[in-house]
């Protein structure tokens, strides 16, 4: 496998979505290729950072407003509005 081919498989490799044979080929290549190894680690860090991003809690005032709005909507519909 050359660098161009490894590049195509890097993301799939990162996701465990390659065959055992492709996995061995990618690993053999990156062991001897610092540039592809850096790219793989860099991709892994990116995905990891994304998935560790915390959930943002909605503001309490918003949650109360949302409930009120939905109740008003239900009431409107109940009255046939």
């Amino acid at each position, binding site marked *: 496998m050359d660098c161009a081919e490894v590049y195509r498989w890097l993301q799939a490799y990162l996701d465990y*979505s390659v065959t055992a044979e492709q996995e061995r080929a990618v690993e053999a290549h990156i062991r001897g290729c610092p540039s592809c190894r850096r790219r793989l680690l860099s991709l892994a860090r*990116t*995905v*990891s950072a*994304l998935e*560790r991003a915390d959930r943002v809690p909605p*503001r309490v005032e918003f949650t109360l407003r*949302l*409930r009120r709005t*939905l109740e008003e909507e239900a009431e409107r519909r109940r009255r046939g509005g």
Partner: protein
Amino acid sequence: MRDDPERDRKDVRLLEQCRQGHLEAFGELVERYRVRIYNLAYRMLHSREEAEDVTQETFLNVYRSLGNFRGERLAPWIYKIASNLCLDHLRRRRPSVSLDERSGEDDDTAREIADRTCVPEDEALAAALGEDIQRAIDSLPPKYRSVVVLRHIEDLPYEDIAEVLGVPLGTVKTRLFRAREMLRVRLDGTR
């Protein structure tokens, strides 16, 4: 949000109760999705106010369309409504279409992509990266932004993302591939 048949069954029960006019069932349904939809919108729009608008509009739409919903699973439907509203907001914000958006993509080889998150990282560093990551997401064209947020923030399976965005599975994979590469270059600066 991985595949969860139990959650889907519970959603269907709630949906039935909502259709029979039980308001408390709708309230429960909102509770199940409120934080997720808000976060989808917040990550897509990077604005609390707009995320609140989208969240409220999503649940109003869901409530008004309950009678017409014929699908079997609520989650992709709710995400679809929210994601379309987010894209509308972004469209209103951006009068011109970026070069990235115009580029073709469907001819690309589809790549099977799942997730791998086992890279150890200092907690404080990760927290500090939160804002960097949001800014990196902000820099993506909308169609790449939605796929990244649905996959890596909301943890939706590819099949659901395809349903939410109304595109083939291969397109989801191609967009995700490109989006992650753009984020990688932006966050890490190495090519």
